[in-house]
């Protein structure tokens, strides 16, 4: 009887270890980025390294049109996130003035945003692909999204030393890079996310889109660690100004 109890206790310990390892891969990862973060200096636009964004003629035309619409307050003509709480998409979400929390788990890194409880996924090789829909159609699934893209596509991630490299493609064309800068379906972003100190996180973002930019450009955003408090239940629509 005593041997049975010891055996059960040992099995239980093994199970606990297995569950712990599968749900928290932080120990196995080269760096622990987990925690709650907030942008160090709130900003409505990414600041491009090198001074200015290298727009193509098409990109500049759309950018200037957006600037005019923004000045006129016509958000429903270009900025659906501000106008009606649509997803801001990536990389704009990384400019959120509110907090976000990073979860490192086995095969996937999650980023939970305080803004409207939006969620981002970085596939580290363990994320189960989304179901595809049949020829007869069905719920908005893999086939439809592959055709249309996402506001927040699932990023593909890997580690380079202690830096998390997240590449994102497959965008919709109706979100913005920041509060004004447009992009097309072919945008690709490559983020290099790392701790520059125990309480400072850096995201270096490289943006490519041959339709809108003559060459890739980069920008860097830094975040400060925040206490790991529960996020409030904030729903964007509940605070949308009634006159917009």
């Amino acid at each position, binding site marked *: 009887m005593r041997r049975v109890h010891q055996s059960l206790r040992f099995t239980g310990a093994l199970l606990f270890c297995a569950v712990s390892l599968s749900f928290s891969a932080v120990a196995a990862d080269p760096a622990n980025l987990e925690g709650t973060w907030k942008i160090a200096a709130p900003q409505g636009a990414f600041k491009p390294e090198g001074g200015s964004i290298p727009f193509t003629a098409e990109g500049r035309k759309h950018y200037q049109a957006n600037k005019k619409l923004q000045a006129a307050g016509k958000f429903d*003509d270009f900025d659906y*996130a*501000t106008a009606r709480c649509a997803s*801001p998409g990536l990389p*704009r979400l990384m400019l*959120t*003035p509110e907090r976000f929390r990073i979860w490192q788990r086995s095969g996937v890194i999650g980023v939970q945003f305080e*803004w409207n409880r939006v969620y981002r996924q970085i596939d580290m090789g363990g994320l189960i692909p989304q179901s595809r*829909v049949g*020829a007869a*159609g*069905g*719920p*908005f*699934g893999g*086939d*439809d*999204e592959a*055709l*249309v*893209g996402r506001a927040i596509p699932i990023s593909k991630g890997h580690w380079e030393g202690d830096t998390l490299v997240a590449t994102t493609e497959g965008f*919709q*064309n*109706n979100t913005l890079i920041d509060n004004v800068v447009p992009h097309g*379906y072919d945008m690709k972003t490559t983020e290099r996310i790392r701790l520059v100190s125990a309480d400072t996180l850096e995201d270096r973002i490289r943006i490519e889109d041959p339709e809108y930019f003559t060459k890739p450009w980069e920008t860097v955003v830094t975040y400060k660690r925040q206490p790991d408090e529960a996020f409030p239940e904030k729903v*964007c*629509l*509940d*605070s*949308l*100004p*009634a006159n*917009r």
Partner: protein
Amino acid sequence: MQTGSTNLKQHILVNVGCSVILAAGLAAPVSAHHSFSGYDMSKTMSAPATLKEFRWGAPHSMVVFVIKGADGKPQEVTMASASPAALNRAGFKPRDFKVGDKMDVTWNPSKSGAVGGQLKTITLPDGRKFADAEFGPGGPGAAPGSPDTQAQDAQFPPGTSGAN
């Protein structure tokens, strides 16, 4: 991503609005995909239009056009259309529908009297025509012998060419 100050009145209005939207949204998946009772399938409207927005989704996308309203002023109309996969099967991709492009559209109007309804066809600037197979002739909304086969055509606004 902007937040605004809310007083009690606004808060109540927003919450009531959200409740209505939520209630409609909960009911929509069933009625939107399987019922055409909200549209007058015996009538087909047509107008030159400017594409303002294509809200992709499944089982239905929503398309926002700007047409010339009955008073001659630009008017936004929203029409239900097909899913990305259905459009793809018909040979059309999202990149074919450029915001700001001028195109000709036909639709079955809403029974409620609201401008807009169920999209039937879009003729793109290059002449290619998308006919919604689900809602157009041959689709479940146009069973054999249904009024759709003898649709009453009308331009919008009535009696005009509807030039935008």
